[in-house]
Structures are given as C-alpha cells and as structure tokens.
C-alpha cells in the first residue's frame, strides 16, 4: 500500500505555493470562467509576490483577472477572458492587453485544450482544422525573440497538408503544452492522494496530466477505502499530485458543483471595483493581502452569503439564487 498524503503531500496553501511555484513558471489555470477556479492558490501566489508568470489556459475569468491585475503575469496564451454577464470581457485583462502590460497570444478553446491533451499524451503536437485562414493562425502574438524562450513554443503553429487526404486538405499543427505547474480545485481528494472531480472537468485533467507539478485544493478529504470503492469516478492518480491543500470553498467566488454556486454579489462587487485602479487596489488589499487564511476569507464573505450560495445536494447549484 502506497503511503498516504499525511506528512507528505497534505500542506497549507502557503507551503504549496512556496514549494512548487516560482517566478517565471509556466502556469496552467484550472476551472472555466465562473467555475472551480483555484482562487485560494491564486490569492496565495499574489500574496507571495510571484512574478513573471507565463499563464496558459482556455476560457478563464475570475482567477486570471485577479492574477493579471496584481501584476503576476508576463506572458499569456489564452482563448477567452470573460465572466459572462458579470464582465463580458475580463476587466483587468482588457486593461493589461490594451496597455501592453502583458504579452498575449490568442488560440481557440479547442486549440488550447488539444495542446494540453497533446502534452498529457506525451505527443509533440496535435492536429486540427480549427482556425484555418483566420488571424488566430496568421498573427503571432509573441515576438521572434520570445519564440523558443523558456516554455514558449518555437512556433505558434504550423500549417501543413493532411498526408492521408486530398490536395486542399490543409490542417493546423499545434505544439503541445507541458506547463511547469497546474493548479486545480477538486471536490474530493482521497487519503491516498487520488483526486475526484464532480461535474464538468473542463480541461483540468489534461492540464494536470501534462504538467510537471500539480497543486490540488479540495473541499473534502475522503478515506482511502471510500475513494477506492468506485475507481470509475476518480480523475487523477496520486503519483501525479505534488500538493494537496484542504480548503473548503477555495473556489469562491466561483462555483464548485454540489458544494456551492458562484457568488453573484461578490462577482458584481469585483466587477465594480476592478474597473478603477484605485478601487481595484482596495479589493486586493481587503480580499487578498489583508486576509491571513481561508477561514478569515470565509468570515469576510459572511455566513449569510455563504448560505445563499450553498448548493442543493441533488441539483448541484443553489436553486432560486438571485443572479440578476
């Protein structure tokens, strides 16, 4: 029987970030816009002043915007930066791109997911027909000088002919991604380190399988026998996981299926505060820098609001929640 996570992988968010994330790392963000963003780890990255991150993701919202706004990101490969009706375009993201504060390269969601899958499968590249002729394949967001540096691919992509098809059968080859670190939030981790994600997995599994190091925050720790009772439901094996942080509601203000809904009140407040440099700094101070730990964070959110977003155990979300 392999060793359990106690005394080895189970640790605080502070230890997880200081041990496994450093300046300049290529970082894959788990979750998708309003769901299962690894917010606790993102706040900890900001608190530890980690800089010059090269973020790779598909469609991201809250966590990404905070990370960019706090000045942690230098390079970004992305398909979508938005928060639905709360911020159709992520606010600090938009500002950073328009002001040239970060270097950005655009792909599509499938393209980015395929790049993670390619990395996870140990393949050098993946193929798609998505994006032929568009600026996604014609405009390189990164400079020639940046190409090949660190984890930046030597080329954005390559257009070639399908050797099994006809003359016009062109395809796009996409370089696989193998990020330094993947951060994800899961509902459950077993005492043995097995990870179980409920609801949609987005590209979290491809990201974790492709990364050199993986940090998982979770709502609950299950016993070894409990999590191994139905192995069909499990998502990642222990030997790919470097750090497990037990932290209920670590995805707040984004949702975590079966545990809590997204927090419309917080997301509206964030959108308001993010739209001005001064109030954004205040948000960072009040909700990141001045918060010692997750318990204090949840205190600040407040029991009333936490009760509002508590998920129905069968539906997985908070029915009737005021989302206007």
């Amino acid at each position: 029987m392999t060793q359990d996570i106690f005394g080895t992988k189970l640790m605080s968010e502070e230890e997880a970030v200081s041990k496994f994330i450093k300046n300049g790392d290529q970082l894959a963000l788990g979750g998708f816009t309003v769901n299962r963003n690894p917010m606790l780890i993102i706040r900890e990255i900001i608190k530890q002043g980690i800089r010059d991150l090269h973020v790779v993701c598909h469609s991201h919202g809250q966590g990404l915007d905070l990370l960019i706004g706090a000045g942690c990101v230098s390079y970004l490969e992305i398909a979508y930066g938005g928060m639905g009706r709360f911020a159709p375009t992520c606010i600090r993201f938009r500002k950073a791109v328009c002001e040239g504060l970060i270097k950005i390269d655009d792909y599509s969601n499938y393209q980015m997911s395929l790049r993670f899958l390619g990395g996870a499968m140990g393949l050098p590249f993946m193929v798609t027909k998505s994006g032929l002729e568009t600026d996604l394949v014609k405009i390189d967001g990164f400079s020639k000088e940046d190409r090949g540096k660190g984890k930046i691919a030597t080329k954005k992509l390559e257009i070639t002919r399908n050797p099994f098809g006809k003359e016009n059968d062109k395809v796009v080859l996409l370089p696989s991604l193998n990020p330094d670190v993947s951060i994800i939030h899961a509902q459950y981790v077993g005492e043995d380190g097995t990870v179980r994600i409920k609801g949609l997995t987005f590209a979290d599994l491809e990201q974790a399988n492709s990364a050199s190091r993986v940090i998982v925050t979770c709502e609950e720790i299950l016993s070894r026998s409990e999590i191994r009772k139905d192995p069909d439901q499990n998502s990642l094996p222990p030997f790919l996981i470097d750090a497990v942080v037990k932290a209920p509601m670590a995805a707040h203000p984004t949702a975590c299926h079966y545990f809590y809904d997204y927090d419309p009140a917080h997301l509206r407040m964030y959108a308001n505060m993010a739209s001005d440099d001064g109030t954004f700094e205040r948000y960072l101070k009040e909700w990141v820098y001045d918060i010692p730990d997750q318990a204090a964070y949840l205190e600040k959110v407040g029991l009333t609001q936490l009760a509002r977003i508590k998920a129905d155990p069968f539906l997985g979300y908070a029915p009737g929640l005021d989302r206007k």
Partner: protein
Amino acid sequence: MTAYSKLEMMAIAAGRLITDGDVVFAGTGISMLAATVAKRIHAPNSVVFFETGGIDPSLDELPLAVADPRVMAGASMNSGLIESFSLLSSQRLRTIAFLGAAQIDRYGNLNSTCLGDYHKPTNRFPGSGGACDAASLASGFIIFMEHEKRRFVDKLDYFTSPGWLHGNDSREKAGFNRGGPMAVVTNLGIMTFHPSTKEMVLSQHYPGVSPEDVANNTGFDVDLSKTSEVLPPTELELKTLRDQVDPQRLLLG
C-alpha cells in the same frame, strides 16, 4: 396580439432555424433562449450541449455562463472540453452552433478578439473561446448581432472565426470539410448568404423594420431584393419563452 420585445423576436426567429434532431452547440444569453424555445416547441429531439462538456442538461434554470453549474444538472453526460469539441466535429451529427461577435463582414467572418492593431488594440474583447472552433467544425452556425454599421464592417479588425472566407468556394478550398454561416439574426431581421457567391443578403425583416433600415445600419452593400416580413412570434412561442424558458426573467428582463 401580445406585445413582444426585439430580444424575444430574435430568440424566436433563431429558434425557428433549428430542426428536429439537431445537436446544438449553445452559448449563453440569447442563444440559450433560442435553443431552448426550439426544443420545447418544434424540435423536441434536438439536444443542447455546451463547450464546457455538459450534454443535454435539464436546464430547469437558465445558465448564465457555459460553465454555470446549471449546465451540469440532469444532463445525459458531464464531460470536458475535448469531449465537447469532439462531438461538435462529429461527422455523423448535424451540429449547429450559435455565435455572437463584435464585428462581422459580408461573408459572415467574425471578430470577437479586438479593435485596432492586435499588438496594441484600442479595445479588447474576450477572444475566440470556442467560436473559431464552432465556425470551423460545426455543420453550420447562426450568428446573433446588434445591427450597427460599426459591427457590419467591410473589413474585420481581427479575423477570429471563419465564415465563407472570401465567398464562392473559398471555404472549401481552404481545407474546411463542412460548415459555414447559415444566418445572421439581428435586431432588424435575418440575413442569409447567397447560395453561390456567399455574400450576405437580407432574407427577412421584422414587422416595423424597413429593408432600408437594414441597409442604413450595414457597413457594406447588401442585397435587399428578396426580403419578406418575418412572421411575428406566435402566442405559443411567446408563452413558452416566458413561462418555461426564462421564468426567472434573467435574460428577458
């Protein structure tokens, strides 16, 4: 006759383009309304799925984002992006996508990325997300747009999602093996594409809108000669939309 809003007209008009058995790649907002109203009225065997991996959820409450937990409840399957885009690409299915954009050109090519130069934009939008994928890979796609000159442009600032490219057979020649824009549903009417040239034409205008209103709000020449007035929403359509699709009035307001 019951009064209705432009949003209701758009959702219902777009929903009518869905046929029974379609596998619909939906976004949020108006596309959710369109897909759901179609499913509840004339296309009961159409299925809605989301790029995030949610396949045929019960949609008892309207999701406000494609990653809303409401796309996971009562579903046939919960999976992930890879599985969802694989379905989108499935050659055995008729997959129809709903897309929005910031700019569109006469061939239905879309920009949802930025205004101005890509490297130093004057404005930035969210980006492709799955739009480029849906435009590239689905059996067809339907676009929602506000009808304004600054959105219906001669040349896109950035080319995010492929429509009919340069018209004629250029899409096929570029390597796409199916798909292309079927219609543009705007607040003024429904635009389609000429069968051979693939140039945008006005197909239907809403009651109270004249073909000239469309021309005046389009940044390129558009053929107005074949337009007719849209059938306004029926009582059943309106009632379904209001009572069953968005009873919380999250989108209908």
